[in-house]
């Protein structure tokens, strides 16, 4: 079963610190490879922290761990992920004549994956 969400990629301070530590280090990789979701949506979908989901946009597909949003940051229907390799895979190349790909407010289809399913290319990135 899939469900449509709106994905907001963005900056976090941990992601910023991770850039300084190095893009192949744990801080950056952990921060950019987890998806934040409202606690209500997680409960409704029967998801626990660190369960895996698949996100599909018209351009790409990623598999990612899910964590509850802190401080009720997200309303139902909205997802957040720190900028990085995974968020970029869902962006289209077209910029509609602006030079800027639509990088926030992306329509994505979410499906729950049974069990952890790290893709080979994600493992490769972490090595």
């Amino acid at each position, binding site marked *: 079963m899939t469900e449509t969400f*709106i994905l*907001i990629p*963005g*900056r*976090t*301070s941990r992601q*910023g*610190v*991770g*850039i*300084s*530590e*190095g*893009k*192949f280090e744990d801080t950056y990789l952990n921060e950019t490879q987890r998806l934040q979701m409202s606690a209500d949506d997680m409960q409704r979908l029967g998801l626990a922290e660190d369960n895996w989901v698949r996100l599909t946009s018209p*351009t*790409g597909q990623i598999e990612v761990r899910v964590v509850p949003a802190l*401080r*009720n*940051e*997200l*309303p139902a229907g*909205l997802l*957040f992920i720190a*900028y*990085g*390799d995974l968020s*970029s*895979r869902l*962006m*289209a*190349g*077209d*910029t*509609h*004549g*602006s*030079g*800027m*790909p*639509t*990088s*926030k*407010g992306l329509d994505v289809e979410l499906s729950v994956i049974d069990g952890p399913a790290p893709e080979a290319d994600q493992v490769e*990135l972490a090595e």
Partner: protein
Amino acid sequence: MVTHTETSDNQELKIVKDATCTFCGCVCDDIDLTVDGNRIVDAKRACVLGNGWFLNHQVDDRPSCLIEGQAASVDEGIERAARILTNAKYSLTYGLSDTTSESQRVAVGIVDWIGGIVDTTTSVCHGPSGMAFQSVGEATCSLGEVRNRGDMIIFWGSNPAESHPRHFTKYSLMPKGMFLPNGRKDRTCVIVDVRRTKSAKAADIFIQIKPRKDFEALWTLRALAKGIELDPDEVERETGNPLSLWQDLMERMKACKFGVIFFGMGLTMTRGKHANSEAVLALTRDMNRYTRFVCKPNRGHGNVTGADNVVSWRTGYPFGVNMARGYPRFNPGEYTAADVLARGEADAAMIIASDPMSNFSQPARDHLASIPYIAFDPKETPTTRAATVAFTVATYGINVPGTVYRMDDVPIPLRPAFESPHPSDYEILTRIEQRVKQLLVLCQAAK
């Protein structure tokens, strides 16, 4: 100012006073660094991002140059880079927001010689705002004026608590200013966002709008500023908030003495893009019928504002400039990096202080990986790993002096902490430019 002190075990430490942090656009120049040899061990007054920046930029134990993944001399790297650039028919030079303005100037010079494209990370952050400035104009001020005068501070689509952690305390909310003797108590803070971000805690008024409805919300305010009657049902349906809330905000905006809107990539990266930026700039202009109001993009990278300035000095345009005809042409969407790569047009590239192999769309990344390119970075990144020629360079502000521009276009000098064994990108770019000029003369003579 540099002084020296000793630890209890007689190790000499260097103290660098008023060093400049170049992580984000705040460019805080009041950081006191304690330096132990080739390592910064303390960064007084730095925020979480500044600490991450200063404490993690020790010298990387990597070759200064790699050609196709193999260690090479810098001389060999410069020769290969110059040949890649001079052999290209449609080269892209991109990045530039995390280096000095001196290096940016040389990079634009190279592009001028080879007739390529120069674009900066501006195109994928506030490029749409750069387009909007040209159509609407910008009512602006320095951050010093915000600190001393700003009694109504609005953040729209921006989350400074995460992206610019000292923004509130140094410039916009907490300081006691010349005309705001009580500091925070004299200011009203409004935050408009689709998420209840960490910054929302700092707000007197938090307005959570519907995703992708910034344009509608801003035009609601524009209509109210003009005294136009609106349908309450339509306003609530479109923005997710009742008309009375927007009316209340408009009355507060009219009543303030010096209003400031800081806007972020929540506007520029979302559907609407430059139309969203135009709307916020036009609203600011509208408000000046009632009171003093200014608007500023919250810029991200340490010297992205410098990149806008330098590319503008050299070409007349701020980003996305094509020099192929011998004179500059500006056209976002045509000459911007994300497009030139995703459409598979560039046949070579020079990436300076940026990581498009992490941050660009997959079609753009696939094309970049398929062409010869040169990368400059103090750290190893996915972009340096896939480069034909990768230079490991000294870090600006930590190893290298120079000039950067704060987000309000104020130039700030850098005070480096220790020397790096790696060359600066300025040094390498200068030598590439010299070699490019020699090769072009030889090529001309051969014709």
